[in-house]
């Protein structure tokens, strides 16, 4: 299979996953998260982050009982907004699971956090203050922490790391995959040894208003690929993973969970919000090419699977273009998590790693009848115990920002 990348990139350095950090509505930490995935848990409730009067429906998947005081060790709770609190917390969890001290990141790491809304929850608050008392009444503490850069800066600051590449990637609902991909490339090029990569977002009025106004929010539950699907449940959380060069992981005797084989990036250049099927297909093809994986070797696809009319049928068709008449199972983790925006593809990546190490395919829950236009096996409602070797994880965002990542079981012989 032809490689579309520079032949001599990175001396074939391999990139492995050594830690997962999860802040979500269905679990804190990878263990709780894994349990929820196994049983098909979801936590849907009326949105509490803002006053929802006036909306006909306002259900979401918020992270319940998140007390920043409990989780943050160095950052003060007012130093950063909620999304940054999530990313810092998930990053610390991932690092601890990997058995790496923060000091091990100095001079050899990249922190990349993807997001859709960054600290828009704080922007909403500033607007409320402005409406109540004029712009002079904007709270300096809140105003000082709204830069999107804070989502990744907060991770470094929470860990006390200084000599580190820090990037907030604003590519919306595929941003987690972008962050994972950026670290993958940087490790392969030998620029870094460790990546702390993922995504984070916090529930906010701004986001819910947009999706509601576009008619893409569901009144009750999220039903990807189901005939009666009506849209997304807005959600929040963070997923951060530790990526490491294989040499670094082996040298310190780390427990290796999986290996990142490659990824693809395309841009639809088509429409601000509607996806372009051929570009989605091309993104998956590029990921397979980069990973040197054949379609028939993929054990399941973790779809973007928002549960909107448009996405699910477009994505299914694109999958069939690439994978033929008998594609592998195609699941949507958004059925359990809701749409966690910038965290979505990172949490889905983490779930894919858990699937590999635990030997099961997480289910697409809330499923009653597969839409005939989505000709896929979505592993309805119950997890399927099976050996999992290779997973393709899709992120397809507004603005046509597509990113697909391939993660696989680590085998010491490549």
């Amino acid at each position, binding site marked *: 299979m032809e490689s579309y*990348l*520079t032949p001599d990139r990175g001396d074939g350095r391999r990139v492995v996953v050594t830690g997962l950090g999860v802040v979500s509505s269905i679990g804190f930490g990878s263990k709780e998260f894994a349990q929820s995935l196994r049983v098909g848990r979801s936590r849907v409730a009326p949105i509490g982050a803002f006053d929802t009067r*006036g909306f006909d429906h306002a259900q979401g998947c918020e992270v319940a009982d998140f007390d920043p005081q409990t989780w943050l060790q160095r950052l003060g709770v007012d130093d950063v907004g909620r999304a940054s609190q999530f990313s810092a917390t998930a990053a610390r969890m991932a690092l601890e699971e990997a058995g790496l001290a923060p000091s091990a990141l100095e001079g050899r790491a990249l922190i990349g956090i993807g*997001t859709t*809304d*960054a600290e828009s929850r704080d*922007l909403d608050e*500033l*607007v*409320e203050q402005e*409406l109540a008392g004029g*712009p*002079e009444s*904007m*709270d300096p503490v*809140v*105003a*000082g922490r*709204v*830069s*999107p*850069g*804070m989502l990744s*800066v907060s991770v*470094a*600051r929470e860990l006390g*790391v*200084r*000599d*580190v*590449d*820090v*990037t*907030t*990637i*604003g*590519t*919306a609902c595929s941003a987690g995959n972008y962050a994972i991909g*950026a670290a993958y*490339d940087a490790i*392969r*090029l030998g620029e870094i040894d460790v990546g702390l990569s993922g995504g984070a977002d916090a529930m906010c*009025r*701004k986001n819910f*208003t*947009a999706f509601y106004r*576009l008619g893409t929010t569901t009144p009750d539950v999220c039903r990807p690929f189901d005939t009666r699907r009506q849209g997304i449940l807005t959600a929040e959380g963070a997923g951060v993973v530790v990526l490491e060069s294989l040499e670094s992981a082996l040298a310190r005797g780390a427990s290796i969970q999986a290996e990142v084989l490659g990824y693809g*990036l*395309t*841009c*639809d*250049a*088509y429409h*601000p919000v509607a996806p372009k099927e051929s*570009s989605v297909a*091309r993104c998956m093809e590029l990921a397979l090419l980069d990973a040197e994986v054949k379609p028939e070797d993929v054990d399941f696809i973790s779809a973007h699977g928002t549960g909107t009319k448009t996405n699910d049928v477009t994505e299914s068709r694109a999958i069939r273009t690439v994978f033929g008449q008998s594609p592998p199972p195609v699941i949507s983790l958004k059925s359990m998590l809701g749409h966690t925006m910038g965290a979505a593809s990172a949490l889905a990546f983490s779930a894919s790693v858990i699937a590999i190490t635990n030997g099961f395919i997480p289910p697409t829950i809330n499923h009653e009848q597969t839409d005939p236009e989505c000709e896929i096996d979505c592993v309805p409602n119950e997890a399927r115990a099976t050996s999992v070797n290779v997973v393709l994880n899709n992120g397809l965002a*507004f*603005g*046509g*920002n597509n990113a697909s990542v391939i993660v696989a079981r680590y085998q010491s012989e490549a």
Partner: protein
Amino acid sequence: MTAVADIAVGQPVLRAWSAVTAYGRGREAFDRGVARGEPAPLVPVPEAWAAADARARFIADFDAVKALGRKGSRSLDRLTALALSAVGELLAEEPAEEEASERTALVLGTNGSTESMMNQTRTALTSARPFFVDAAKIPSTVLNCAAGRCAIWYSLTGPNATIATGRVAGLSALGYAGRLLRVGRADRVLCGAADEYGWARSWIDRAAGSARQGDDLAPGEGAVMFSLDAPAVGAEDAARGSRDERKRPFAEVSLLGVRQWVSEKQVKPDDVRACVRGLLGAAGIDPAEIWAVAPSSHSGPELPVLGDLFGIDDADSICIDHLLGDMGAASGSVQLAAVMSRAATDQRAPGRVAVITCVDPAGHLAAAAVRVGRQAVA
């Protein structure tokens, strides 16, 4: 007279750039403005904007419809329109090949249109129902709107990324773009940064205390875009290029590296020193090779350290914050453009290195190094 110097083989090369700033549209307008050294006009901000500043160095005559034509521009936010204009100016300098669109990436440094985000919430909270917002403006409320629009407008289907790291975003974006090229995910990257002026940014900066004092450092806005090409494979490849037909002097530079640093609170001189030393060490640059430094500010931790490290005093540094004002998320890119501008005519530049540093009040620092290569003088 043409001065030719080695372009580092294996490094991405900046072969073209353009800008839309208060100095006007295009590279030549920017070159002229910076060369003259006169600050861009401090213009009274229209009352209707409800901004925090009475005057600012915003682009008073900039209008999306005027800049881009009527078709498709009515609902564009100011930030997106600025980015689209700058990309258009860049592509006029260095057109994109249609067949190459999948291999042409776009990486934009931006904090997004905070204005659009806050306006939407404001509308939601002051309307009869909380969802009575303009659907046409919804795309403007996400961080990647401008980058996505540029892709649509100019048919760019290669990797498309939005880097949202405040004032250092332009240098962060350069780092991301360089990596795409080195690993082979694109053959060319249109890379830069943009920021818009408006009530949202002005009041947030005022409240946060990051609004800088004095008219000299009034807020500015604009967009700067570079064309970054994949590293040369060999010396012949490195020597290629047909930029000699330009009307004005032009320099190509190679990107040697970008390095960052996160401070405990605000960036201090020791942070600048450590970051710049790290950058030079990683890129194998001898301090004696430094031709110029370009800090983001005349005040603050950068100049004293850069002066100390390289023996370059204020007079020889390239710092234009007093000319175009606080450029927000476009800062790092504007600084690099000023370096490109100076490199085109400075006879001491070819073969030597410029160090650019950029400080964000959140305590985030970025430094970049570029080597000046070919100069073409008409």
